[in-house]
């Protein structure tokens, strides 16, 4: 059985059908209590894959949390349930931050350089979804957009006498709302949609909510350097940056979600992927349009300046 490509297969008997049902239930359970159960079949033990592709410091990682590795070894052997903390304890949330520096950097690299054969979730995340990346990448992006927008507006309006520089702190709140809702609500909707389709169509590949949040969070990383490049007040540079960033992060999303929907009806699959891409594009273009004023070439008196202060005479 190849571990690299997932092909849809017909169930050869009751046992395989039962195992498929168990894997769906496991995904539900894994949403509430992470890694409580491993899907019994079909999902290869991906720790082997990850160890092969990541740096040889996996030993260091296993030393660092050897108890968790010992647990997971036992679980793979017994294929049973593992005790996990209840959701009101601190340890439950610590499980989402169980990443080392090199793992986060690997995931970021994987999100910036998508390759069609490398499914981001399967390669980097399947064994260990984390919340560190999505949260802090979104925070950095919020501040990158707000600060770059401010600098770029200052440069664009430099020399215009009516323009009085203002830090425009409100925009940070707006940027934060937009980006955090995109990074958390869209995965929620997508996860719900995929779960619903999974119940109708037999589909082996299904992602847990945390994995979808991870993909979205890491795919936003490319916008951070893009936001910094948007400071340059030249329109065509900005549009090229938008297109390149959208292509890279959009392709990460498409490569991740195509296997999950391709077994569905053709139209629904295409509609889902298009919705993912359109929302992504909307975020990029919306941020660029709202936070970054277009460089103006007209006479300063004609174009209304964005921020005009009533002058004290």
């Amino acid at each position: 059985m190849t571990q690299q490509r997932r092909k849809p297969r017909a169930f050869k008997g009751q046992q395989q059908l039962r195992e498929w049902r168990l894997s769906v239930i496991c995904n539900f359970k894994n949403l509430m209590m992470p890694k409580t159960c491993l899907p019994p079949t079909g999902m290869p033990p991906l720790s082997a894959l990850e160890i092969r592709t990541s740096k040889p410091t996996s030993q260091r990682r296993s030393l660092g949390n050897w108890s968790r590795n010992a647990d997971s070894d036992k679980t793979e052997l017994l294929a049973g349930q593992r005790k996990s903390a209840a959701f009101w304890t601190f340890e439950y949330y610590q499980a989402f931050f169980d990443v080392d520096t090199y793992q986060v950097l690997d995931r970021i690299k994987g999100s910036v350089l998508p390759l069609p054969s490398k499914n981001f979730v399967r390669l980097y995340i399947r064994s260990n979804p984390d919340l560190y990346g999505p949260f802090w990448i979104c925070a950095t992006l919020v501040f990158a957009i707000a600060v770059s927008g401010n600098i770029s507006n200052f440069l664009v309006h430099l020399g215009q006498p009516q323009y009085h520089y203002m830090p425009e702190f409100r925009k940070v709140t707006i940027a934060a709302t937009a980006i955090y809702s995109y990074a958390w609500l869209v995965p929620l909707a997508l996860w719900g949609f995929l779960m619903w389709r999974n119940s109708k169509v037999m589909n082996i590949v299904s992602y847990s909510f945390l994995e979808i949040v991870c993909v979205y969070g890491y795919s936003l990383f490319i916008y951070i350097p893009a936001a910094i490049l948007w400071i340059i007040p030249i329109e065509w540079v900005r549009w090229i940056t938008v297109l390149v960033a959208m292509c890279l992060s959009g392709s990460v999303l498409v490569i991740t979600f195509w296997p999950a929907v391709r077994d569905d009806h053709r139209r629904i699959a295409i509609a889902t992927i298009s919705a993912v891409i359109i929302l992504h594009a909307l975020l990029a273009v919306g941020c660029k349009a709202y936070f970054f004023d277009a460089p103006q070439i007209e006479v300063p008196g004609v174009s209304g300046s964005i921020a005009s202060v009533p002058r004290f005479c």
Partner: protein
Amino acid sequence: MAEVDEASKPLFAGLSDVSISEDIPVEGEITVPVGSPSHDDEYSTLDEPVKETILRDLKAVGKKFGHVMYPKKSTTLLRDWDLWGPLLLCVTLALMLQGGSADSKEDGGPQFAEVFVIIWFGSVIITLNSKLLGGTISFFQSLCVLGYCILPLTVAMIVCRLVLLGGTGTASFIVRFIVVVVSFGWSTFASTAFLADSQPPNRKALVVYPVFLFYFVISWMILTFSPSHSDGATDTGP
């Protein structure tokens, strides 16, 4: 015989037989032996003058300021944490960031509440982040360290306001920029000097990065502070 007596009788059985006649006066002084006077003083500071109490706390805060300005790996900040210093610094910084373009009706600089929320909420989030990643530092110790390390940035704010009194041209911007960058580096370096030891070794960068982002945001607020008085508002005249 005594052993047999002890073994057979229950404890204190003989006490009920004791009777006190009225002739023997049962009175006297019962004094609890005090250990040492200084041991007693540490726990009852109620009797000392108020000035001493306040000065003690102020000295502790001042000592910690000194540790931040000359950061070396010491556990003083961590061991005796207090939140007076961070509160003082936060209020000072928030007050000094007022009086800017906030007077205008458009959105300008951050309001007092915004600065307050950013500093405290940001510190709480960074502390939670470090604890979730497996740090051994306690919640309030981390808040204490992050708050005290805002001191260089507060000093930079004071310097910037003084520089702005002299005008808002390019030269003043360059001076302010250099001052803010230096104090940002100082703050980040000081806080990592205190926090570094309590983190797991292969996650240090993951813990330091949010601290960097936090001080970067505060530095940005300081650098973009622009006064509202019209003498320095624009470079070119009307």
